[in-house]
């Protein structure tokens, strides 16, 4: 409990005068507001989806003619599982999108009441000629995100405008933000404390962002793999490639993003709860755009499998890819185990019994190293220039992050092992 004696709000700074009592900074702020976050994410997914459609500019048939393909109960999988039974809900409960037995979301959870047809015949949501994706996919994605963001803990009370995640409270207007777990008595304040408030802008939770940005590539790639209509020439619709590399690449790519999704849900411990809202646009554009670009060429009917070393190249690439996937996962587990649940202590990561973590001897951020290795393997496997571009851009970004992390490690810990490089052993 505290008394707020004066509160004066102007555009940039709010001075709160408090009596210093044993009170954590976090308790001063209010809770998350779920409705704002959910609604904005919903419209975000919808607008991202709609904006992604304008990639194709010619040769598009009308949406209405494509609709009949879905309503005719076409079966996409060898197992006879039909994605679009005529007139019925698009995602009946327990629908398995992957090889039988693996379902994306808990069985029994139906996002759409059965029997509800989302696109009654004749209803076209998109300007004619611009339809790319199976109908309902956008609603599915936004429904999924609603579901997932609903799984975050938050109250439902009518929201003050500046919820906790949006507030930056600091002792000095130009200084660093105070942490949630800071205690007033341990701060350099006297009998009265003056805090400065800064609005960080609309925030979105890290988990939501990660799930959206990783879910997109997963689904997009599969759409290209199964050659959904309006992507390639009509005679190739729903055909499969004759090259086994293409099947392998699809499995690797899907496995990678599925792994990332599961890690986001179960492995990662995030130190920050939220990030600025505009990051989701930026990140999703990057991931979804590159995924679509890569998938287009790999699953193209005129795709050329690796020619330089043929099958051997693909085998070696697969080994590299799998090795780095396991390595990446091991590092994530090791980093998770560094920090007991709920605490925010920071420690130097060290090699554990797992051989994949022994790279900690040489590198500060081996998760990035293994990530780079995975994508390098994928590039070799597919011999596709867009994949090489994606690997290169990712490498540059991860190097920047790794250097920053390395620098902050050096600043924070006196006894940091000197042999370590940020991302590439001895080199970078």
């Amino acid at each position: 409990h505290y008394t707020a004696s004066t509160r004066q709000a102007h555009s940039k700074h709010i001075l709160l005068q408090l009596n210093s009592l044993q009170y954590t900074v976090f308790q001063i702020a209010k809770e998350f507001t779920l409705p704002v976050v959910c609604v904005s994410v919903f419209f975000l997914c919808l607008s991202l989806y709609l904006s992604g459609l304008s990639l194709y500019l010619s040769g598009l048939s009308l949406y209405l003619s494509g609709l009949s393909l879905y309503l005719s109960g076409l079966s996409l999988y060898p197992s006879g599982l039909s994605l679009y039974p005529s007139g019925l809900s698009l995602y009946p409960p327990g629908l398995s999108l992957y090889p039988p037995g693996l379902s994306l979301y808990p069985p029994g959870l139906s996002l759409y009441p059965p029997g509800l047809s989302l696109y009654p015949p004749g209803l076209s949501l998109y300007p004619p000629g611009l339809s790319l994706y199976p109908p309902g996919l956008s609603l599915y994605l936004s429904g999924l995100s609603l579901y997932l963001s609903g799984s975050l803990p938050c109250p439902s009370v009518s929201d003050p405008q500046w919820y906790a995640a949006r507030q930056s409270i600091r002792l000095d207007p130009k200084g660093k933000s105070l942490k949630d777990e800071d205690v007033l008595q341990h701060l350099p304040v006297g009998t009265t404390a003056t805090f400065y408030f800064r609005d960080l802008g609309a925030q979105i939770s890290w988990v939501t962002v990660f799930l959206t940005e990783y879910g997109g590539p997963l689904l997009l790639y599969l759409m290209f793999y199964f050659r959904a209509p309006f992507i390639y020439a009509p005679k190739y619709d729903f055909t499969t490639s004759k090259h086994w590399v293409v099947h392998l690449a699809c499995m690797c790519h899907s496995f990678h993003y599925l792994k990332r999704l599961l890690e986001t849900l179960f492995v990662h411990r995030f130190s920050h709860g939220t990030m600025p809202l505009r990051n989701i646009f930026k990140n999703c554009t990057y991931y979804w755009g590159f995924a679509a670009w890569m998938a287009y060429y790999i699953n193209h009917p005129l795709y050329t499998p690796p020619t330089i070393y043929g099958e051997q190249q693909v085998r070696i690439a697969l080994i590299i890819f799998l090795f780095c996937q396991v390595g990446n996962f091991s590092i994530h587990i090791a980093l998770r185990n560094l920090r007991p649940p709920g605490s925010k202590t920071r420690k130097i990561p060290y090699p554990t019994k797992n051989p994949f973590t022994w790279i900690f001897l040489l590198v500060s951020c081996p998760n990035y190293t293994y990530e780079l290795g995975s994508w390098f393997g994928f590039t070799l496997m597919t011999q596709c220039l867009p994949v090489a571009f994606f690997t290169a851009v990712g490498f540059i970004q991860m190097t920047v992050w790794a250097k920053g992390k390395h620098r902050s490690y050096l600043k924070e810990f006196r006894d940091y092992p000197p042999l370590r490089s940020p991302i590439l052993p001895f080199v970078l």
Partner: protein
Amino acid sequence: MASMEEDGSVEEKDNNNKKRTKSAIAVAWLTFYNIAMTAGWLVLAMAMMRFYLQKATHKGLYKSIARTLKFFQTVALVEVGHCAIGIVRTSVIVTGVQVCSRIFMVWFITNSIKQIQNEESVILFLVVWTLTEITRYSFYTFNLLNHLPYFIKWARYNMFIIMYPLGVAGELLTIYAALPFVRKTGMLSMRLPNKYNISFDYYYFLIIVMLSYIPLFPQLFFHMLRQRRKVLLGEIIVEKDE
């Protein structure tokens, strides 16, 4: 992958002589460079005017000044180097984007697609560029010499209001006129199948370039407007900080 917190915003400073610690060599080189560029664009302006007065038509004008234009516009790449080294306090990316868009227009549109060289829109953007560059380089020159006449400052921060939209219009019309020829010849394009598994269609690339003007042009224009308010009208603009 964990990503870092927000990166800081980059501010563009138009006064490139604010750095008092700049070495004498840097100042000398920059002065020489700016004088040379002013002279070059003046030469271009004279050549264009002379051609038009003599021939009374704009057909063939581009061809007569093509070499000079290509030379002076390409040399502008050096400015990116200035920003990278730090003797000019502007962001490398902003300068890079501006110079690259000019180089793209000169080398990949008007130089490669001969059929559009006699279009009126070419003359439009050539005139705009010439006027803008002469003003800009003379502004920098006088700034470096610390004797800036007010009318140059006035011209630099006011003329863009008309020049910028006109220049964009000229460029867009030129690209639009070039589209049919690109489609017909299939230039600079690569089709599947090939062993790199990539394809590139210059025609659609040009369309995307044209569309990209829509978000980019307002940003640059309003940036110049903000600079104008700061420099010419002395307003203090509090930058939105994160």
